[in-house]
């Protein structure tokens, strides 16, 4: 490992925060408070997580590892819920979607031998899967809310012609799944050309041969495609029903 950030360097880099604060002050953005809170939270959260991960990796106990993953998924589900105001049971739906995509994707990586059954590999990958599913689900919710509002009339007409709610919502659901998946598909198309993704950059900075680093990144991209697909489909199919009442009327 040839990468160490000393405490002195880190303190000096704090100067970068002042740049953000200065801009906010000069441009009267009113973001100073948010920046300071953000900085403090970053330091505290990451420090806690750093020590926590060190401990979890050291004791290498599967119960603790699963608990850690569960906490990650719960947090991700709670965050996704906030993107779907008005959608009943959004937390539960998000939880099911994120849990399923994490189990399927990380399970596949373990089964294929791409990941080892050790906390140091499973936890970071579960985190990546959960956070990407969270973002995808958030986009799905936003699209569902917008489409059920904008296409209300069309949905009513379909119901009026005797359509089941599934058929009446089909185009909206498809559009929303697409909305959840498209950022990942776009990034799969431009990866390496526009940005060097975090995973790969991290490995390269840590001294890994770039040719080896890309293998990991390819795996990550495939993983994220599956992740967002699974998460978006589950979330959309569970959530669209919430736009109707038991008499199959739009709420």
């Amino acid at each position: 490992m040839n990468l160490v950030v000393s405490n002195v360097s880190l303190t000096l880099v704090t100067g970068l925060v002042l740049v953000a604060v200065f801009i906010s002050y000069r441009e009267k953005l009113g973001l100073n408070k948010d920046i300071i809170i953000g900085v403090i939270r970053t330091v505290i959260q990451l420090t806690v997580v750093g020590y926590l991960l060190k401990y979890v990796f050291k004791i290498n106990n599967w119960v603790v590892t699963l608990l850690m993953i569960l906490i990650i998924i719960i947090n991700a589900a709670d965050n996704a819920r906030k993107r779907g105001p008005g959608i009943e049971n959004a937390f539960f739906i998000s939880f099911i979607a994120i849990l399923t995509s994490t189990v399927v994707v990380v399970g596949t990586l373990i089964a294929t031998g791409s990941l080892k059954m050790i906390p140091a590999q499973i936890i970071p990958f579960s985190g990546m899967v959960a956070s990407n599913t969270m973002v995808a689900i958030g986009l799905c919710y936003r699209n569902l809310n917008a489409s059920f509002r904008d296409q209300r009339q069309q949905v009513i007409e379909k119901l009026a012609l005797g359509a089941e709610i599934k058929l009446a919502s089909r185009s909206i659901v498809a559009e929303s799944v697409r909305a959840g998946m498209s950022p990942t598909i776009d990034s799969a198309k431009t990866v390496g050309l526009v940005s060097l993704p975090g995973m790969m950059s991290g490995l390269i900075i840590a001294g890994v041969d770039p040719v080896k680093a890309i293998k990991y990144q390819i795996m990550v991209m495939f993983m994220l495609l599956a992740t967002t697909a699974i998460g978006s489909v589950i979330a959309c199919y569970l959530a669209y029903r919430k736009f109707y009442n038991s008499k199959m009327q739009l709420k």
Partner: protein
Amino acid sequence: MAVIEFKQVSYQVGDKKILNQLDLEVADNDYLTIVGLSGGGKSTILTLMAQMISATSGEIDFQGQNVMELDPVKYRREVSYCVQRPALFGETVEDNLKFPAEVRGVEYNRDRALELMARVQLPASMMDQKVIEVSGGERQRIALLRNLMYLPKVLLLDEITTGLDAENKAIVWNLIRAVHQEEQIAIVSVTHDQQEIENAEKVIAVVDGRISR
């Protein structure tokens, strides 16, 4: 016999009473025209009949059975609702005429669609036309045909000729009168159209959520 019966039906949103203990009967072969000022509750009667909303209190019966106990999907295939200024679905005109078959999970009857198109003076060539290219009058006619691909027992029409020119209105009304007479379909039509009101068989006026006698 009453096909649809409202018994003391009220509907309110928040504190606002839109319909107030309304009694109403639509008989088997009725052609009922509902008139009244905007905001008086006319369209609410239709959306209740279509079960797009449920009554706050009172009971709505369909052929003697409380609609709350019926499967809404099956019910809506019998009591078909055509909205004001409808939107078309899918890409082409034909997608719209296929939709009722899709809803029922049966094979699409293209001959029936062509026959109906001819009755409202739409050429067969229009089947493949993109929905965004059709005019307002054509859109209204196509939307109405969706309701008639499979004949309902009751047809609910919400100001469907609003904004149409005289020629388009005549085409639409000719078809509606024909299905009413030939197929014995009950019609409930909400309208502001003076000519339609003058020609109506049976008119009721709704004022402030009540039927004014």
